[in-house]
């Protein structure tokens, strides 16, 4: 079982089309700035291919990250989510998400994906703490991660540069002992209703 089934999204293994087409789009649209704290330089297909090739050998060099492709319930590939750094010794992992399609911002896709990933990290990787970072100006992300149980922990002053402005970076942490479980949060956040409104009644 390497697909995690949610209500608005499934988290799946990457397919070649993601790296060949989607990554090129995401690296050149607005989503990149939000996902990377300000990166936005135009990036060619050849550069993307090189980055992908470099990354695909990373595991052999000791890279511990685990990443999923995000597919919305309508079948569209919309982004990725995963653990950028899994520290098995300290049982801590850093979580990162990237929704490259603006039509899928808001509406619960990111929250659904986040809950699946947290659940996976605690239940399969035996993490006991998760961290994630975002920017001061990304209020949507702050709302979403707080709703999912993360607590604000640090404010790194002027740690990001976005369109010529220094921006604070915020870090959040979630302890496994504080996590009410995915099911409880799905209910609490009304994800079933959100899925139904967007995609109609399903299984």
């Amino acid at each position, binding site marked *: 079982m390497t697909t995690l089934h949610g209500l608005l999204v499934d988290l799946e293994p990457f397919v070649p089309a993601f790296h060949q087409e989607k990554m090129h789009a995401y690296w050149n649209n607005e989503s990149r700035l939000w996902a990377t704290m300000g990166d936005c330089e135009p990036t060619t297909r050849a550069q993307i291919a090189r980055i992908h090739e470099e990354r695909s050998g990373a595991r052999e060099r000791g890279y511990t990250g685990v990443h999923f492709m995000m597919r919305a319930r309508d079948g569209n590939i919309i982004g990725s989510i995963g653990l950028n750094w899994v520290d098995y010794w300290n*049982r801590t992992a850093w979580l990162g998400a990237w929704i490259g399609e603006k039509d899928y911002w808001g509406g619960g896709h990111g929250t659904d994906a986040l809950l699946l990933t947290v659940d996976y990290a605690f239940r399969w990787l035996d993490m006991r703490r998760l961290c994630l970072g975002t920017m001061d100006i990304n209020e949507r992300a702050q709302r979403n991660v707080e709703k999912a149980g993360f607590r604000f*922990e*640090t404010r*790194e*002053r*002027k*740690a990001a540069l976005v369109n010529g402005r220094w921006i604070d970076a915020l*870090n959040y942490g979630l*302890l496994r002992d504080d996590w009410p479980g995915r099911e409880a949060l799905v209910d609490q956040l009304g994800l079933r209703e959100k899925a139904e409104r967007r995609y109609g009644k399903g299984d």
Partner: protein
Amino acid sequence: MIEGKLVDLVPFEDDFAIHMETWMNEEAWFRARLWERREPHTEDDVKKFIEKMEKSERGALIGFQSKDGDPIGGVIFDHEWQRVRKADAMFFAGDTRYEGTDEHLDGLLMLLRYCFETRNLHRLDASALAFDEVRIDLLRRAGFVHEGTLRQHIRYDGDYVDVEMFGILAEDWPGYEQKVAALDLQPSGIEPKPKPEKKDDKETEAGEAKS
């Protein structure tokens, strides 16, 4: 060499490397590199670490020594993010006699001086285990600002402990000369340790004949 008030920054070469096998197995090392596994570091691990830092394009390991030329420890900047001009700052007194002394503090100040005044960095990050009062005191005296706490972030001796996170911006840094004058640094008067004997023949073959 970059000369400071109580310590000088020097290339991390043989005089330092010869101590590093001891230093990398000291508590001080794991307090500075707090996410690392608590495992013995062999001669080979030490060599690989020094080589890795030498080759790094995003960081460096630099030695700091007393005015008598006594190697004290190392300062490290790492994971330099060029676009944002920020890096992680680390420092350790491998010779634990210097732990918490003004020489130790000056090592950190010299790292800040190098990062802000030579490398033109904008921001440095630093961290300390919550109970590591010596390190936290040094960071605060150097001008780092406490920016929050990562809860139960690091495994430590049967427990999971909080990590205090600190940051300093170039605009917080008054300049080395001014900082040193304000702190009134005083030498600890610790006697330099005897120079250790070189322990294998390879170095003699490489032309550094023992006298």
